[in-house]
């Protein structure tokens, strides 16, 4: 919409000049649509360059220290550490206190992370400490966390979630890895505050995408993975959960990137259904798993049930159809022989439903997603199923191709009419 309005505003003076509308009408139109907030491109550019500069200088300093100068005594090293750390802190303090613009804040607070990291690395070098990269990352992230709250910055927040994820991935100890949840949780109050203000700003979208992916990593690290059934329940419920949350609370995004919850949720649901349709397992043990596996499976499943029951009336058929996946997962544990059939039928059904919604909402992207699902289904199921004759397979492919062409022609025709109307 924004684009159209700013285009309209540019046209208004011309229209007034040509006497098509009066100056008063032009004013009324402007009042009706309200002011267009143009993106501050200069500000964005400055922020990007300040971040780039920080990363380059920070990496340079780390490499400079990595050289490990023979001439430096332990005392000199200590002085270097504290001088650089304190001067950076003073600089950051000055930036925060004077509420400087975003490029200053992002650049200086990110630089502080580098300097702190370099300080700890230099100490490890000086005293020949055994390499413990993971502890190093964790300490560094936690030391910088409060700065994110005080300076209200994006890049250090992004680095925090990234660092915590790396920490989790590097851990081998299964019990310790559960701390990834409170660690990610520590940044969430800040995120909620930001998201409340403007969910769709570029920086907030970036943080949201990252934290959703981090949560998926956290689940995979927390699960014991000894029990395939519980893992499937956990993941299918979790993907459904974020999809439902997206359709309830974040449904105004127009582009794919503006709908992280729905995009990741939908992708997860489709991938799980697809994989499940391949697995030819007789029965799956549902017992003998770690407590956390049961806990996550029950938690995610119950939350989905709660959301579906509470918001039943505001969900359309497509959302409700996606919502039955966790039930299918449970059902196919009870009757594993129906497994392949159920998931294939389910994916076909979803594909068709998505095409229908795509046509209904006049969204060619959605319609094509439906096509893609069905095409992948057909190619992977029928192309390699040699018990089906070539003739049958040939027919299926031709029909599929025709369906795609027909619906595309239908959609583009529709679009053409729409344009003429305008």
């Amino acid at each position, binding site marked *: 919409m924004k684009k159209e309005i700013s285009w309209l505003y540019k046209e208004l003076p011309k229209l007034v000049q040509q006497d098509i509308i009066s100056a008063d009408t032009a004013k009324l139109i402007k009042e009706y649509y309200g002011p267009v907030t143009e993106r501050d491109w200069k500000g964005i550019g400055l922020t990007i360059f300040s971040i780039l500069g920080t990363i380059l200088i920070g990496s340079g300093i*780390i490499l400079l*220290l*990595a*050289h*490990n*100068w*023979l001439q430096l005594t*332990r005392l000199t090293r*200590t002085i270097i*550490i*504290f001088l650089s*750390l*304190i001067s950076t*802190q003073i600089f950051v*303090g000055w930036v*925060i*206190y004077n509420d400087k613009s975003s490029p200053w804040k992002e650049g200086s607070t990110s630089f502080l992370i580098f300097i*702190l990291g370099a*300080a*700890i*690395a230099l*100490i*490890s*070098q*000086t*005293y*020949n*400490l*055994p*390499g413990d*990269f993971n502890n190093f990352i964790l*300490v560094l992230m936690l*030391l910088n966390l*409060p*700065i994110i*709250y*005080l300076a*209200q910055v994006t890049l250090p927040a992004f680095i925090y979630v990234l660092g915590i994820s790396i920490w989790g991935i590097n851990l081998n100890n299964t019990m310790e890895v559960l701390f990834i949840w409170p660690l990610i949780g520590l940044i969430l109050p800040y995120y909620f*505050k930001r998201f409340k203000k403007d969910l769709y700003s570029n920086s907030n979208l970036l943080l949201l995408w990252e934290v959703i992916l981090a949560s998926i990593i956290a689940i995979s690290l927390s699960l014991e993975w000894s029990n395939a059934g519980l893992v499937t329940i956990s993941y299918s419920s979790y993907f459904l959960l974020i999809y439902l949350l997206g359709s309830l609370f974040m449904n105004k995004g127009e582009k794919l990137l503006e709908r992280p919850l729905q995009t990741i949720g939908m992708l997860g649901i489709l991938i799980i259904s697809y994989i499940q349709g391949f697995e030819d397992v007789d029965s799956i043990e549902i017992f003998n798993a770690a407590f956390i596996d049961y806990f996550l499976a029950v938690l995610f499943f119950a939350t989905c049930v709660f959301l579906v029951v509470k918001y039943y009336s505001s969900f359309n058929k497509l959302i409700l159809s996606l919502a039955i996946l966790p039930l299918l997962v449970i059902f196919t544990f009870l009757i594993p022989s129906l497994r392949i059939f159920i998931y294939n039928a389910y994916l076909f059904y979803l594909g068709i439903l998505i095409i229908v919604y795509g046509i209904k909402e006049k969204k060619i992207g959605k319609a094509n997603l439906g096509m893609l699902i069905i095409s992948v289904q057909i190619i992977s199921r029928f192309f390699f199923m040699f018990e089906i004759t070539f003739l049958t397979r040939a027919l299926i492919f031709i029909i599929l191709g025709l369906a795609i062409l027909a619906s595309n022609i239908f959609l583009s025709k529709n679009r053409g009419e729409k344009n003429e109307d305008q």
Partner: protein
Amino acid sequence: MKINRPKLVILFLIVVIIQLTVPASMIIKRELILRQGESFKFKTAPIDPYDPYRGRYVALDIREDYAPLPESRLNISRGDEIYAHLKKNQEGFAYFNKVTLEVPTEASYIKAKVTYINRKENKIYLDLPFERYYLDENIAPLVEKLYRKLNREENPNTYIKVRVKSGAAVIEELYLDNQAIIEFIKNNKEKYQED
């Protein structure tokens, strides 16, 4: 979240102090060990990998990184923390003469994790905090070459000097062919350039 300024200043100062405390305490702990700790020598064989974040170092392979398995067969497994008691042999090199689960009162000791237990040889292998010795980027490859050359000709005496205090240990110096590393480089530089 708009925090008023006096509050912001106080919060920021607290964060700054915490940030400074971490490196400060790391340094103070090691300095105390280096100044007050008892000195031990461990025989070692250095090799040279590369750590992109911390620069060049010599990886240390401690020869006596095990203690005898006690007859009582302590209830320990891999990853458990134990106390390894230190002794010196006739040549003055350190070795571990026993392990306990309790903090020793009389002997010097190092707190370490068990890496694995060899029941056949009755040995408990330990994860000692001496993994690496950092060197100047220009010097590390030189040391490696010299050491290799030396190693081919004779059996050089290579060891580290560490300081131990209340279970924690810090490396003080690396010795190649009975010389501190800096001296070793000075004495052998011409030899290296001749090649």
